[in-house]
Every structure is written in C-alpha cells, then in structure tokens.
C-alpha cells in the first residue's frame, strides 16, 4: 500500500513533467513552423550538437551552477519565501571570495576551503538583510531582494576597481587578483573533449544530497516544510516563523554563495568584468521546473543547460536561437499549470479513494 501510494505520487510528477514537455515541444514546433523552419531537423541539429563531448562537458558544467542556484531558490520556496536575490548574493559572494583567494596564498585544500567558506558567509550575510527586513519591518522579501540585487551590483562595481579589490587584467579588463594554483580545483578530463568537467560538480551533487536529507530527515527540514505548507499550523505547532525566515533565507544565501564557485575555482580563477551573471535568476525558473526537489532540479538544470548549449548550433544554422528561450519559458509555464491540474485531480482521487475504502458514502 505504501509503495502503491508512493509510486502514485511519483507517477503524478512524471505525468506532469511529460505532459509539460510534450506541450512545450509542440509550442516550439509551432513557432518554428510559423517562422519558416523545419522543426524535426532543428531538433535533430540540437541533439546532434548536444551529444558531442564538448557539449556534454559544457552542459554539465553549466548545470552545476544552475543546480546550486535552483537549490538556493528552492530552500526559500519550500517555505513560501521568495528569494529573488540569489543573483546578487552569488555575485557578491564570488567577488569577495575571489578577492580573498587571490590575496592570500594558502596551502592547497585549505586554500579552496577558505575561499568556499568566504563565499558561503558572504552569500548568507547578504541574504540576511532581506530576512531581517522582513521579520523586523515587514518588508516583502520579493521587493527587497530585487533591490538588493541592484545594490549588490553597485557594491561590486565600487570594489572591483584597481586600487580597491581589483587589478588590471589586460588592457580592458579588471578583476580580482588571480587565485594561485593552490586554490584552484583541477578539472576532470572527459573522453573526447579538451574541456574539463568542473570538479565542483561533485560538491553540487553532495549539496543536493544534503538538501534532500535536510528537507526530509531533519527537524529543521520538517519545520521548513510545515511553514511552507501552512504557516498558521506551523506557528501553532511551535515553529518560530521569524527564526525560520531568517534561517531559511540565510541558508538560501549560503548555498547561493556556492553558485559562482565552479566557474571561479574551475575556470576563471578571478572575478572579472566578464564573470557570468544572471545564474540566480535562471535558478528561479529551474527550481520551479524541478518542483523544488533535489532530483527534479537535477533534471531541470540539465535540460536547461542542454537547451542553452545547443542554442549555439541554432545560431550557426541561422535559426534564431531565442527559440530556446521560448521553449524554456513554455516548459516552465506548462509545468506549473499542468502540475496544478494534476495535483487537483490527484487530491480528488485520494478523497474518493478514502471514502470508497471506508464505505462512508452516504446512502
């Protein structure tokens, strides 16, 4: 029986995901056809390109950042806390961590650990600002985190100047001092490609496992979920919601601090003007797509990264690569809608099921 129901809720998620995928492929095909392109050959080109070793490495590396970002967002979402500020949190964290890592050379391992800890701390502290504003002043975290994203940009711009935390890199770029070899994470070779997998991928996977464990097995996780499902019931059960808001937000920010690490420690070794931006915003979409669960998010971030990567070949084939953005948005919107419908139907089935089992139906 347990297995039966467990399987059922799985089936539900799968059905939702499948319907949404079919729906968005259909939308994409329609858009493509209307604009004069051949959908099957477009998809085929994407898959051909996507399965090249370079593309696979690129997809996985991208997915690492997306995954962490979506996890950060999901911690908040699990208790109906909308941390739109992941973007600012990870950028500020990566910048300061890079500055620290570039300034002090430490023995290997310790060096990486210090950089990561700085990132986690900065991310968490920056996220504490909206959390405190929310619990002490009642400011909606949606608005405050958005404002803080902008303000983070200002702070980064201020600090990222030669004479402050940055040095000139080449004639037109500035960045923090390059992290020495002891602070880098060596990449993992991938057969058939010169590109290397970020070894931080492993940490991302571990973060996912930790997230799952935290949500499903710890008291904190229970409180978090309870606050998300019914805040009033959680309060009555003794959950201190203000404390939960602060803790969840700080935790979300701390995870956000990790987002820039794959790139920083595995690829660029400096935070410069061209450090990737916007991963925090993408994470929101991916968290929604993955239903805020660690496994769902894993699939979602792979899908998203795959679409991003294979969009290159569309550009090459003179197909507007923005079709990919349409696919992503369509998947997202249809997933939320379809899941809503599926869970309503599921609830109904449940109630009918219970009544039928008990024979409680009135004569």
């Amino acid at each position, binding site marked *: 029986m347990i297995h039966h129901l467990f399987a059922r809720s799985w089936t539900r998620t799968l059905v939702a995901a499948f319907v949404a995928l079919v729906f968005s492929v259909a939308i994409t095909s329609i858009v493509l056809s209307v604009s004069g392109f051949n959908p099957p050959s477009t998809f085929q080109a994407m898959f051909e390109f996507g399965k090249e070793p370079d593309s696979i490495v690129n997809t996985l590396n991208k997915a690492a950042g997306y995954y962490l970002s979506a996890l950060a967002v999901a911690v908040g979402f699990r208790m109906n806390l909308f941390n739109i500020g992941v973007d600012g949190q990870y950028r500020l964290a990566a910048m300061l961590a890079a500055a620290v890592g570039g300034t002090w050379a430490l023995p290997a391992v310790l060096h990486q650990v210090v950089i990561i800890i700085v990132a986690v701390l900065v991310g968490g502290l920056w996220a504490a600002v909206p959390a405190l504003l929310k619990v002490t002043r009642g400011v909606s975290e949606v608005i405050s985190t958005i404002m803080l994203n902008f303000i983070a940009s200002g702070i980064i711009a201020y600090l990222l100047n030669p004479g402050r935390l940055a040095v000139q890199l080449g004639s037109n770029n500035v960045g923090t001092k390059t992290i020495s070899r002891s602070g880098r994470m060596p990449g993992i070779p991938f057969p058939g490609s010169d590109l290397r997998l970020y070894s931080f991928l492993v940490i991302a996977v571990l973060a996912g496992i930790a997230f799952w464990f935290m949500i499903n097995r710890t008291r904190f996780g229970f*409180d978090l979920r309870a606050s998300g499902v019914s805040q009033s019931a959680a309060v009555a059960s003794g959950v201190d919601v203000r404390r939960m808001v602060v803790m969840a937000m700080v935790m979300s920010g701390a995870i956000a601090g990790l987002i820039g690490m794959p790139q920083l420690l595995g690829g660029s070794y400096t935070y410069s003007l061209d450090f990737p931006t916007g991963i925090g915003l993408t994470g929101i979409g991916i968290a929604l797509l993955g239903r805020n669960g660690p496994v769902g998010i894993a699939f979602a971030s792979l899908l998203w990264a795959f679409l991003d990567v294979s969009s290159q070949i569309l550009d090459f084939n003179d197909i507007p690569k923005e079709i990919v953005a349409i696919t992503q948005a369509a998947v997202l919107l249809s997933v939320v809608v379809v899941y809503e419908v599926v869970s309503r139907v599921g609830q109904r089935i449940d109630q009918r099921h219970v009544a039928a089992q008990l024979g409680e139906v*009135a004569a």
Partner: protein
Amino acid sequence: MSTTEPAVELHGITKRFPGVVANHDIDIEVAAGTVHAIVGENGAGKSTLMKILYGMQRPDEGTIKVAGEEVALHSPSDAIARGIGMVHQHFMLADNLSVLENVVLGAERLHGIGGKARRRIREISDQYGLGVDPDRLVEQLGVGARQRVEILKVLYRGAKILILDEPTAVLVPQEVEELFGNLRDLKREGLTVIFISHKLDEVLSVADTITVIRRGTTVDTVQPGDVTARQLAELMVGSELPVPELRESTVTDVPVLALNGVTVRDATGRAVVDDVSLTIHEGEILGIAGVEGNGQAELVEAIMGMLPLDAGVVRLGDDELTGMATRRRREAGIGFIPEDRHRHGLLLESPLWENRILGHQTRPPNVKGGLIDRQGARRDTERIVRDYDVRTPNIDVTAASLSGGNQQKLIVGREMSGDPKLLIAAHPTRGVDVGAQSAIWDHLRHARAEGLAVLLISADLDELIGMSDTLRVILRGRLVGEADPATITPDQLGSLMTGAGEGSAA
C-alpha cells in the same frame, strides 16, 4: 402571484462531492409566508442543499421550483433575480469595506453605490430595527451587528425568500431572541424564511414547519406542535443524542496552570485580554464561556505563546512560561486542540503520519537525535488511528482526504499523546458528527480522571456546562463572572455572557 403555490419546492435533489454524497434524493416544500426550519446534525448536508437553492452549487440531479416555476440556477445572481437571498453559515463580509459597500455589492443596479443607496439602507435598517450604520467599516462591527448586516444585504435586494444558515451559532440566547423577533417581523411582511439550525429548542420556538435531514436525505417533515425536542433529536440522529456530562469530581488542589494578571493588547493598544487571572488544577476542566470575539482566542494564543503578553505571568506547575516560545511550552506539557483545525491543527496536504509529528517535532517517538524518526512516527500514528478510531484506509493518505470528524479525532489523539499536563481544547467538537463528539468527550473525561487539567472553550453551552468542573465567563477580554456548572442553565449563562447579569450569579 398566487399565494397558494409553495414558495420553494425541491424535488429529488442529489449532490455528490468526491467521496461524499452530500445530498441524496431530497424533497422539501416550503409554503409561502412561513418560517421553515431544516435540522440535521453536522455534515448532514444542510448547507449544501441551501447553496444549491442559492445557485452556488449545481445539483447533480433533481428539480427546483420557485413560486411554482421550475428554474435552473447557475449562479447566485439567478437566485437573487428570483427573490432568493441567503445568509451564510460563515460571514460573507469584506472587513476592509464599509457596510454600505458590502450591502450594495452585486446589487449596484438598484440604487447605485452612493447617496441613494445610503438612504435606502437607512430606510431598511429603520424599518426592521436593525440599527445598521452604512458608513462604518465592517471590521469595526461585533458579531451581532455583522449578522444584521448580512440580513440587511438580503433585504436590500428585495428578497422574498430568506435562507438563514445557522444564524444563531455565534449568538448568545438574548441575541437569538432579537433575531427571532426580526424573523417574525419579516414573516409578517409576507416573506418566506428558511432557517437552519441544529439547536432544537430554537427551532421549536420559531418554526412553522420543520424538515429533518439525516445523512443527506430528508427523513421527515413535522409541525413543531407535534414533536418534542427529544423526538426531533432521534429523528436527526437515528438514535439517542449523546449527553455531555461528568460523573464524580476528580479535581485536586494541585495547580497546573496559573494565570496572573494576563493582559494582551492589539495593534491599536486596546486590551483584548484584560487582567485575566485563573488557576486550573489537576483533574479539573475549566470552561470559559463567552460570546465569540471576546478574547477567548487571544487568551488561548497567549497561553500558547503565540501572542506576546503585555503584562502578567503564566505558570505551568512550577515552571514560569512567560516569554517562552510556543515550542518550549508544548514541551513543558501543553496539548492544544485549536479552534480552526484547518488553519492551526493540520498540514492538509501532508500524510497523516507527518501530521502526527506536527507540534511534537522535538519529542519521541517522532525524533531521534535531531533527526525525524519516520518509523517511530508511523508506528505511533497507527496507534492513534487505532485508539481514537480515526477512520482512514492507511496513514499515508493526506489529512485533507479525511472527513472533519476524523481529522478532529486525529488531532485529539495527537495532543493527548505527549502526556500533557494541560490540554487547551478550543471548540473540540465543533463541526464533528455525533459519534465523534461522544468519543471526544469520553477521551476528555478519561484524561481528566488521570489528572489532566483542561481549559475548555466552546460556543456550545450544553457542552460547556456538561463538561466543566468550573465555569468562568469572559466579556470584552475580562473574566466577569464565575458559575457553578451543576446549577446554572444555558439561559442564565447566556445572560452572563452578554454582561446582562454581571456578577449576579457569581
């Protein structure tokens, strides 16, 4: 219009909800110009039937005739157009809008939304003595006034047929009398009133005809002169009604809960709980009587630590609780059956075994070393389901799929299982069926015998009088009186609750 036609005829009405048949082949005829009562226990399907008549829900089968004409009601507007108005079981008012706005909403065509409408409202208010000020914000009104606004809303639309769904549930006897006065006035003006209650004395005093519904079907239609309350009750339940009563006293002199000068203020600085002091002993059930909205909810939340105290001390046994977090209080031995189980008692979308953990997240059998002990929680949920007769196929279904009574039994079982010293029971049997009701009472009696102290809050005066060792009355946040449950009648208690007999029965 011929007056010989019945105002409303319902034939063969059937309505199914997922898992429940709320109405099954219902037949009712309501004569014009009469007060027609519909009685039935909780969940019998009364509200559903009325919502069908008001166009809020579509019947799966059956026909509706209004003034002899068969009608299809797709929405409340259709019903309103046919002269049907409904006052719902729960208030249907927007707090942040004025009385005027609430009244004219949806009926703006009649007199606009400005001065003309205001004059008309005053007119109606005067005509029926409702005493309603159109420009007050609804949130500033008390329960009785809100009830009258609801009635005004219906009259404003020129309804000829009034449906009142349990209008008396939140009123004290004196207010009920006033309301019945109003109803008689309405009848005199030629209106038809359909009136729902499960308080049989009331029904017998005001109705011209009574229809009894049991488990979704009409059982009988009787005249008030022909039946006694007892007979009606048996028609309703199909058997004898359970009676709330305590046997011998188990009260000891060991204090469990002691409140001293407890004061809580709302955002505007008004004291909603005002200098409350009381003591509950081991083995004692202390009932608090009061009209809804007089500070009971806030008092409970203050004891639970959900609201901050403005002044005063809360002690549990030897521990001082003041300033302690809700969780610590629960750990110290308070069990809590909340007034609104959906909002405060359950995670509706979570399985039963997770609901078992709720409120007991820090204690075995739910946790082991900071981690959730799934096996422990599941095992104990099975025990509760068994011991408290929670009707469910298994413990993996969501709480939302249980019926209200079974949800309540699960909560009672859970709250009893932490070996509490004190149980706060707010309306523990509200909205549960008779079987569950008597089971819950049994559990309370049993726990009391074992030394549990209980703070009981209820709007059901029979329950309150029958189940309490001590009775206190709360009015505008203050404890205004004490009564002996052995001697007091519901009527006397009612007048204490309104402040009419302040101090006299102490």
